């Protein structure tokens, strides 16, 4: 009985602690919003420059009423999903190719390093010239930013696959394709998922960068347009919506990660 009580106490303590953490997380958010609202109401900060929570909500409501809200979100989401999907697939395939051919990986190594450290945004103008001032440019830009880091991180994972496991398959006379599908790929599921997380944030950077440069719709466009007409509420609304979108997608990946990791 006594040990049971001790355990109950212990569990209670853990629950209390996590409740405390969540409580303070909410407090910080609420404090920030109210302080922002009060300061702009009292005129201590200029609400024309800094906007206010109420103004942001009003902007969202008016966007929703004019049916623009979901159009903008959908356009950005679509661009993100396409470039994220393409970036992941191309990245993994290319990493597999590099693993397959140590010669090619040696030859390409300096090029990958240079392209990886090059700020891809600098290629923006030339991308627009080549792909046109449309969605293709945005997707290409995001792809360029995300794919190289995917290639590098996944390839490093592939290369660090447990040597003993590979030798084991060789002792069964497995061919290279079997070694890849039976050992290298499954043992790198975690590497691939963590590269997805980085890939996602890279894709966001790429898409918003692209939208700032060329778009007529999307959240990046909203931010850009807002700043041009000096409507800071619109700019901040764009940023807030973007924040919500990132979190949703990020939690989606965390969910997938949990599902996949459970298997072993």
């Amino acid at each position, binding site marked *: 009985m006594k040990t049971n009580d001790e355990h109950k106490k212990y569990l209670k303590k853990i629950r209390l602690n996590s409740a405390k953490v969540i409580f303070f997380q909410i407090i910080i958010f609420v404090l920030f919003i109210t302080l922002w609202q009060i300061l702009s109401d009292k005129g201590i900060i200029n609400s024309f420059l800094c906007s206010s929570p109420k103004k942001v909500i009003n902007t969202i409501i008016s966007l929703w009423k004019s049916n623009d809200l979901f159009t903008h979100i959908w356009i950005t989401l679509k661009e993100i999903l396409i470039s994220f999907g393409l970036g992941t697939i191309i990245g993994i395939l290319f990493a597999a190719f590099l693993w397959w051919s140590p010669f090619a990986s040696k030859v390409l190594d300096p090029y990958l390093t240079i392209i990886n450290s090059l700020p891809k945004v600098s290629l923006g103008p030339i991308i627009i010239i080549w792909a046109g001032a449309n969605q293709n440019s945005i997707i290409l830009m995001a792809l360029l930013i995300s794919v190289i880091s995917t290639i590098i991180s996944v390839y490093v994972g592939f290369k660090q696959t447990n040597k*003993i496991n590979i*030798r084991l398959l*060789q*002792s*069964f006379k497995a061919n290279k394709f*079997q070694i890849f599908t*039976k050992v290298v790929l499954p043992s790198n*599921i975690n590497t691939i998922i963590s590269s997805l997380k980085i890939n996602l944030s890279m894709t966001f950077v790429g898409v918003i960068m692209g939208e700032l440069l060329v778009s007529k719709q999307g959240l990046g466009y909203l931010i850009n347009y807002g700043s041009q007409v000096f409507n800071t509420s619109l700019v901040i609304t764009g940023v807030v919506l973007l924040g919500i979108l990132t979190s949703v997608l990020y939690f989606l990946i965390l969910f997938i990660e949990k599902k996949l990791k459970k298997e*072993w």
Partner: protein
Amino acid sequence: MQLLQLKELSKNYLTKKQVICALKNINISINENEFIVLVGPSGCGKSTILSIIGDLEKKSGGKIEFNKKNIKVGYMFQEDALLPWLNVLDNCMLGLKIQKRVTEENKNYVKSLLKKYGLESFEKSYPKELSGGMRQRVALIRTLATKPDILLLDEPFSALDYQTRITVSDDVFKIIKEEEKTAILVTHDISEAISMADKVVVLSNRPSIVKKIYDIKMDKKGLPSENRKNEKFNFYYKQIWKDLDHYEN
């Protein structure tokens, strides 16, 4: 009956700076159902001999003659090398799957092995749920599943703690004898060598040559753990210790 013979086997490792001669003129003959143990100082190239027989590495010179055609080799490593994302049964079926030999008959053979060696109720368990000794048994059954003619055991117990090591040696020894397999085991542990072997081959430091070959003859030879208590055990131990010691200096 003789199963395989190593003739004048040699192996050089090439690096940018130098040529390292690992094996030099190795002559060993191995009979069917024989348990051979190779001992030698660490880094002397004993594992290399297994890699060459198992076709994982190329030899530099000499010959390996098999007295049977299409001889099949099964490998067991220092680590159990179980794949953590496959359950015990799937791990055991891995070799058959790769060689595209998954038949009802072979599957039943694997299941019968698991049953025979006390792993039946763990078929659906994952490697992390098993103890070190059980994992090593699974690794052996995975190797036996492909029905190899000869087993190559590359220090398969070195990752285990001492007590587990003794019990697992007994288990593995029993399984190999019961399934009537030929085995070559590599170790640097003299006691392990004497307690398991029919024949101990003592190798020298690099470049490795065969220093001596002992036929281990004991009255009432039994399981490795029993052989360790045999009166002849100490005799062989002293002999082999001397052989190795001599070459260290």
